[in-house]
């Protein structure tokens, strides 16, 4: 394992040495400041996965012993009983959806923590607003221009000027949580990360230089800034080297959007390009209609989601000490099922944190009962854990960020104690 990692590092060095002609500006900057390019000191990596559409936390991780649940959800209710969907019992109170089977060993081994009853203090039930608030990290202020993950990058405490890959989102557009002053990249497909004219490397190179000149002088700020970042990143991520970083033997990613995104994140981690924050998203959680129980739309999505994460974890066997994965979703869904076999927009949901830095094997929660008087507006699982107390805990414990005032302005709550180091 040690040898493999040593090889990876020298591989990355070689990648650098062979970079497309010319010295990338970020290297020049680093040389000026007499920073040593190792190329990158092994840093911790936080991988965040946003489940857009609001995952039904009550079905993913079910408080199955609460008698109300069966009443509120006559056709959706599941429990560990054979006849009731064979959930995987976690602690005698909560059951893991059978489609999340892949998470079960992580939980047993103590690498995975589940936090339930998580959400935002702002009670909006609009996807757009709730995502906006969860990503900006300021649930009552729309005007916050930066995202919490971008602020996290700024608070990492070591020199930021050395790599354009410090924060990477595997999406076609930069997500709200990465908006901000700290350089962040959105890449949909690593393969496409070059100026390409097939079969004509000369012309490619010249075209590339021409574009670089043009974007350098444009009066449009956004085109100028993004152009510069693009060319820096392109020089560093030489697409000809990608095939050296294929998945480990026996590791096969699900051929799905989230599977593909995690595969690319794994590639970037193995390439040692200095990535410290990665972001991916997963869709299809807005289950208003026929969500199904042990089988069906939600079950399929949960399986894809957990299988992709489990395969990713296996692929990164040599890097597991450095990687933590945290999932998030904008809100939960109504405690009762609706008239069309689905659930509507609710309040609290649950999330998963996986990593060797995690105090796992526990469902962290302050959930009371599902009796009407304990529900928010008489209908929804109330938010009993502020999402910021989880996000900050992971940022503190894994990325060693300590300034929660800057990470989450307007918040004076305390972090949940779910990481080993705090």
């Amino acid at each position, binding site marked *: 394992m040690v040898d493999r990692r040593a090889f990876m590092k020298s591989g990355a060095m070689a990648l650098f040495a062979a970079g497309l*002609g010319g010295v990338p500006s970020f290297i020049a900057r680093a040389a000026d400041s007499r920073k040593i390019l190792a190329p990158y000191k092994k840093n911790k990596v936080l991988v965040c996965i946003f489940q857009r559409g609001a995952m039904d936390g009550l079905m993913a991780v079910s408080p199955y012993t609460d008698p109300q649940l069966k009443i509120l959800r*006559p*056709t959706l209710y599941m429990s560990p009983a054979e006849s009731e969907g064979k959930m995987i019992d976690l602690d005698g109170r909560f059951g893991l959806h059978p489609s999340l089977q892949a998470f079960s060993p992580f939980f047993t081994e103590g690498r995975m923590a589940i936090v339930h009853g998580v959400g935002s203090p702002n009670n909006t*039930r*609009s*996807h*757009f*607003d709730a995502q906006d608030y969860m990503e900006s990290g300021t649930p009552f202020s729309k005007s916050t221009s930066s995202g919490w993950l971008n602020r996290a990058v700024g608070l990492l405490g070591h020199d930021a000027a050395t790599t354009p890959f410090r924060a990477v989102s595997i999406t*076609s*557009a*930069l997500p709200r949580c990465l908006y901000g002053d700290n350089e962040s990249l*959105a*890449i*949909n*497909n690593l*393969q*496409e*990360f*070059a*100026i*390409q*004219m*097939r*079969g*004509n*490397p000369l*012309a*490619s*190179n*010249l*075209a590339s*230089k*021409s*574009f670089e*000149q*043009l974007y*350098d*002088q*444009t009066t*449009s700020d*956004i*085109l*100028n800034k*993004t*152009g510069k*970042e*693009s060319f820096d*990143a392109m020089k560093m991520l030489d697409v*000809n080297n*990608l*095939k050296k970083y294929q998945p480990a033997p026996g590791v096969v990613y699900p051929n799905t959007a989230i*599977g*593909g995104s995690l595969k690319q994140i794994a590639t970037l981690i193995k390439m040692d390009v200095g990535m410290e924050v990665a972001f991916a998203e997963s869709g299809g959680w807005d289950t208003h*209609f026929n969500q199904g129980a042990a089988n069906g739309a939600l079950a399929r999505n949960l399986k894809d989601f957990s299988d992709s994460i489990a395969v990713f974890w296996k692929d990164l066997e040599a890097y597991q000490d450095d990687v933590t994965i945290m999932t998030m979703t904008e809100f939960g869904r109504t405690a009762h*099922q*609706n*008239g*069309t076999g689905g659930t*509507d*927009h609710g309040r609290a949901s649950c999330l998963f944190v996986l990593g060797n830095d995690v105090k796992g094997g526990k469902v962290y929660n302050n959930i009371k009962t599902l009796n009407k008087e304990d529900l928010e507006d008489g209908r929804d699982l109330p938010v009993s854990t502020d999402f910021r107390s989880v996000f900050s805990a992971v940022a503190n414990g894994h990325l060693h960020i300590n300034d929660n005032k800057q990470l989450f302005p307007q918040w004076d709550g305390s972090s949940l104690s779910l990481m080993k180091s705090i």
Partner: protein
Amino acid sequence: MNFRRMYKTFTVGASLTVLSAFVQGNHSSSDPRINMPFKKMGLTQEQAAAHLLSRFTFGATPGQVKEVVDMGLDKWLQQQLDSKLPDDEVARRLPDSSYDALGMSNEAIVNTYLNAGQVIRIAAKNNLINKDSAKNLDKPEYRAQLKAIMDAQGFKPQQDLQRQLVNQKIIRAAYGQNQLEEVLTDFWFNHFNVSLSKGQCQQFVMPYERDAIRKNVLGNFETLLLATAKHPAMLEYLDNASSVSNDNDIARKQEAGAIARLEKQKMDALAKDSTGASAQQIQKTMDARKSQGLNENYAREVMELHTMGVDGGYTQTDVTTVAKALTGWGIMPLYKDAPGMKLIEAAGPALLAKKGYVVDGDFLFRADKHNENAKLILGQLFPVNGGYNEGVQVLQMLANHPSTAKFICTKLAARFVCDTPSVELVSKMTDTYLKTKGNIRAVLITMVNQRQFWDEKALREKIKSPFEFAISAIRATNADVQQPFQIYNWVTRMGQRFYYYQAPTGFPDRASYWINTGSLLNRMNFGLAFATEKIPGVKINLAALNDNHEPESADAALVIYSKILLPERNLDENIRRLTALVKDANIGQKLNTAANKIAPASVNNPDNMNMQPVSSSDEMIAAQDAPLTRRQRKANEKAALSRKNLPVTTLYVAGNTSTLAQVTGIIIGSPEFQRK
């Protein structure tokens, strides 16, 4: 005179205004006069025409700036607002032989282009699979048999319907004469987004754009809102078709009967079967019947996204109550074997009308599924037994709410002027909106009549969306696009998989959403692939754009083609920079260095890591030519190197059309061409 519009105006009872329209001539009386203050803002006619074209079309075609100036800017705009120019080129490019679905009704589509569920039913009917093992359908042998059965019965695959939908949008945007109508179709579709990613509404997306959106883009907002609300695509996409209530007399009677019957069945079952298994089953049916009901999804989004905006001043209670007002809004049974079809036919129109049902095209209001209680919405009382009209009145109230006026005008200004339009501009537009009860033409005229539209800060300020970018390249070069789906693949890669945007918000309309590191490189690559005709089915005659005069040098090529592709822009700095580059004294050495590099990997090689789900259509197989052999590559490099002592680089060699294409590709990929 537009008789259709006249008729509509009559029906709302404004006969007097229509009379005065006769006097005024060729525009409707509620439209303000076009009076564009571009001269006051220091713009020449040419500059103003270029700006107008950049915002109200998908990009100027070569020579179009001059055409608009010659015709007169006001007249050109009026023509676009009237939207009646003949569209022969679009018709020629969308022949019935390969675009048969474009004229089909919802019903014809449902019975021709089957969705996944219908295909499974057919497979089951023909004993290819049993209902529980639908996954078998993935096996090749079943697929072949299924295809044979479907062909024999005249069914067609969904992918073909989606191909027609995607291609027609590209063709209309690139070659249509009524450009403003097309720009607004793009805008309003995105505003009232529905998505092919949702199976239940897939079949209706094409007719939705055609019947609910395109027909109403220059009309009245209220009409547009109602058309979307009642269309099967929206009813399915935001679940309103399945939002029902039993709070009405018909249902109460039926329900009592049905529950009594089930109760009896349950008792009989218990008597027969001591384990109680079948009785439990019946109980489940009863529970499901009882829990059938309200779905708030559409009600919430219609207020948050379609009309008032999230800060528009409504509460959660308003959302729930609007949902109740819209219960029973559903779709006529369309599939010919559907049980509902027979029921409706058996009842007959007279009985349906008597019971309060409403049939309007494919829309069906089910009186037996409507909540008939009194309701209080945004402070207004809706009395009991409001029926279908109650929902209509609610939507009319939303359409004409001051919050809606402001929300819609802000969004229009963000699309046509700049990402963050000024308060003054929006408030002028909002006044017109409220005065004209949401007349979209009037609002647009008010917008161009304001100085802010012509302000220097607004010129070139908007960044083209990937779709706008690709279409503007086609228009700027008079390109002939024979395989529009190839353009779609590129637009997807640049970050805009149109018709598939999953969230009801539609694509965010701002530069920061479209421009990021990955997408920017793809835009540059599109420019190169497009101009060098590496995208299959794209033909460009670059020489023809310059009246077949060949530029004599790289400098000349840069100047001439920059001016053709980017009319009325200040390009001096661009040209200076590029000229310096192509005249670099060390270019020979640089070429040598470059020659030692390996060609970038193909975007389609087997290692391709792009897993973004795309349609299985054959045309998705993307756009690059076959990989060159090592020998060919060597030969290419050698040929290029042999020119190293020439004064200019391989970027441009006089008499070599492929190098002219490269210059053009760089102009298209340049920052200036991303702006509009």
